[in-house]
């Protein structure tokens, strides 16, 4: 258990090292989640639009 505590202490620099890693984790995961969510929302919007115009439905099959 002692070694785990030592590890988290980061030689006395815990308050610099962990926020750096935390911030990078937060921003990258946030970037991924918002990008995925935008894609899903737009995919649904496009599908709904194509429902309205049956004449063009076949054209975007490969979406």
């Amino acid at each position, binding site marked *: 258990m002692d070694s785990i505590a030592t590890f988290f202490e980061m030689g006395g620099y815990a308050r*610099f090292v962990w926020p750096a890693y935390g911030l990078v984790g937060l921003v990258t995961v946030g*970037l991924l989640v918002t990008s995925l969510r935008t*894609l899903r929302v737009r995919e649904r919007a496009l599908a709904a*639009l194509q429902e309205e115009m049956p004449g063009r439905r076949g054209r975007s099959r*490969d979406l």
Partner: protein
Amino acid sequence: MQGLANPARFMRLSKVVQPWLALASVLLIGVGLYFALFGSPADYQQGQTVRIMYVHVPSAWLGMVGYTTMALASAVGLIWKHPLADLVAKAAAPIGASFTFLCLATGSLWGKPMWGTWWAWDARLTSMLILLFLYLGYMALQSAFDDPGRGARAAAILALAGFINVPIIKFSVDWWKTLHQPASLMKMSGPTLPPSMLTPLLLMVAGFTCFFVVVLLLRVRAEIIASKIRAIRLTQIHGSHESPLADRLAG
């Protein structure tokens, strides 16, 4: 490259590549994190703060890769007027801006214990801050027009003019020897880091780069769909599709 320029083909290809890149990213960052936090030594001068390097350097790298992607795509968009190029530039901007912000923030957290200050007007730090402002300016300009084509054109010119900053960032540590340490990775004479530190750093850089491409592909796909939606709405308004651009995007 020519084949990729077709939006439909791009969509198909990116769907095939994406899961593999995502897997590579998770594996590389996973192993990289293990070495960065457990499997590498503390620095004899900087102690444990050196571990910040393993997230700071990949962030800096992607901040510059993002800008280079944006500038290249902007050039292609301006010269060949290809709609996909504008979408790539637009998609790259927020990703590059995020990593530039992370580079500055993690650098600040590293600078406080090692240099005794959160910030200094050192050449490297200042040019990196300018990079962040260029990204923000690009994003503001590009969304300031009702017509997305005009916004893309104006923003593309800014992206190209601002590209001069990228080599300045790279060489700032050699031209002005102030606070930031010089390059230890991208050197003509090879990296100067010991293998125990080089391994986790390269793993993290590779993993972050895969992540960058995955998010870029997701965002380009979202931009292509947004263009299709716009094209369909235009044809709804006009009753028939007269616009060649709309036709190209909807196809």
